[in-house]
């Protein structure tokens, strides 16, 4: 952890009206590192990601990406700097074809040949998407939609991905496939901040992890250490 972090949150607070959702969250992610953020419902995991991609404005603290503060930068510009967000529930453009969905992922790329090359890469990573290229996004199954959502984010060749609940509502076999892909991102040098309810899966895939409780970080450390921590095991792993 000596390298300069690619993403750093320093004492970030956020609120919805009178409700304080985050109370001073600090997270560091090194380049190429997979970091898991686990916690219960309503702990503020999704809000954390939203404040990073500037969909929700932080009320205090600072968010730096790649060395500069991105606080208050429009979401589109955050994406342009190489930080892609795959939100909860996948949010595929249902009435756009798979190919158009991927093209939207590369909205900021203007070179058509480059888009085509990356699209071919995506079809190689997820062959099923290649078979369905002309189909509308809304007609895909849940697992296929999740793959499309990740593939769409990768179209920009980002430096970092924010993944929100990629396993939500998917069959175990599909979940394993998705996590294989997430692990493979490490080889491509893409850092990942992974939010998960499925703590077991997340901790096995991640290098390090943070535990979020009612808007504050309560534990942090190497993922495997947390996996063995009795308190964590009891609270989040059901063992």
């Amino acid at each position, binding site marked *: 952890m000596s390298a300069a972090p690619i993403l750093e949150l320093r004492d970030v607070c956020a609120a*919805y*009206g*009178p*409700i304080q959702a985050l109370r001073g969250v600090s997270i560091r992610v090194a380049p190429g590192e997979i970091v898991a953020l686990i916690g219960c419902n309503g702990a503020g995991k999704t809000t954390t990601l939203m404040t990073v991609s500037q969909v929700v404005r932080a009320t205090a603290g600072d968010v730096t990406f790649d060395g500069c503060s991105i606080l208050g930068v429009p979401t589109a510009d955050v994406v342009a700097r190489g930080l892609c967000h795959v939100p909860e529930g996948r949010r595929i453009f249902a009435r756009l074809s798979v190919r158009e969905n991927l093209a939207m992922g590369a909205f900021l790329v203007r070179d058509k040949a480059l888009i085509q090359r990356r699209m071919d890469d995506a079809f190689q990573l997820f062959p099923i998407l290649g078979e369905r290229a002309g189909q509308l996004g809304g007609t895909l199954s849940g697992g296929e939609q999740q793959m499309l959502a990740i593939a769409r984010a990768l179209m920009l060749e980002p430096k970092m991905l924010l993944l929100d609940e990629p396993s939500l509502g998917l069959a175990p076999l599909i979940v394993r496939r998705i996590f294989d892909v997430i692990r493979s991102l490490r080889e491509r040098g893409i850092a990942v901040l992974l939010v998960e309810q499925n703590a077991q899966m997340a901790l096995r895939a991640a290098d390090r992890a943070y535990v979020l409780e009612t808007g504050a970080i309560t534990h942090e450390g190497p993922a495997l250490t947390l996996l063995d921590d009795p308190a964590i095991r009891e609270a989040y792993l059901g063992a």
Partner: protein
Amino acid sequence: MRDRIVRLLVATLAAFLLALPVASLRGNSSTGFTIVWTPAFVTAAMVLVGGAILFAAVEAQRRGTAFWDARAATDSAVGRRRPCAAQAWTLGVLVATVAALPLLGLPGAWTKLLLETMVFATIAVGLQITIGMAGLLVLGHAAFWAVGAYTFGLLTVHQGWNFWIAFPAAGVAAALTGLVIGLPALRLRGDYLAVVTLGFGEAVRWVIKNEQDVTGGDANLPGNIVPGSFRKPMGALGEWLWQPAAVDGRTFEPGTVQALIDRECYWFALVLLVVCVACVHLLAKSRVGRALFALREDETAAKCMGIDTTRVKLVAFMASALWAGLAGVVPAVHRGSINPEMFDFNTSVLFVAMVVLGGLGSITGSIVGAALLWMLPALLANWFPEVQEYRYLFFGALMAAMMVVRPEGLFGGARRKGAA
């Protein structure tokens, strides 16, 4: 601050440029193009002044908000309410004063103006049920007013019905019309209702215009001279409640008749307004009222709580229409004539503007809104006759500005929008 001034200057310049082709440029097929500079400059000046006022208002509000919020918070925390008895007394004295005004020698013009204001206030308070409580925008409310007025007029003039039967009939007719329009429209998203009621308002106006034989078309209701039967009371009680001014046979000096009619209609309008306010107030406190507020905040959640949303909306919509219908009786009697142009789209928007200005959900607000929007232009017109012509321009601007700056209206804010 600097940022604001720059923005205001940009807006002023933009307004000038936008005004040029539309307001200043004239094309004439014999003389070619001419440019009349005045309107563009006036527009830019208006935007500059209006914008400055807006900024000042926003600034004042931002400073004031902290105070108001703190007070509201402590009020609700302690469960404090203004003493009820004192409130009732104030209200009673106010109503008594207004009722006594004509006896204290209020000039005729004022009586007329106050009377009209009370009619509009009744309609605005009724409209509060749909817009303020249920959160449904109605853009054809003038049509219910028209249905009430014409039902009353036709029943009395053509059928010779007694006032006390025709009066409730006007309200019922309006409410039933509301049912017919509401049934298809209320099952859908709220904004469809806005358009459907808008179309309905126009349709009603066209029907009145086209059915010449019955309604008198563009002219007034045929036989617009109020006949004796129009005002014949029902027995002793009616005699006492509604003392006809021009009852058969009695003779008056010219001018006195109008004064008497003015005065009686004034009291009638006042009673109607008071009853309306009481009913709407009770409705707001009732089970149905709470269901309406729930509906406004979150329709899906309300549905899940077991509220039959369509039915509740329909009740609200019909209650609103009922009050507009009843209020329609007053101009019919007072003016002795009605014509379709009184009930056009502008009038519907005027009602909405009254509710919006006063504050969504606030009864006091609606009354104040009606008073401001109806009396102020009329009074200003005494000195600046052109005020009346620019009224609707101003109303529109006011509505848009109000939404941007203070969506809760003058008297709203009791129920703030919650967390995002």
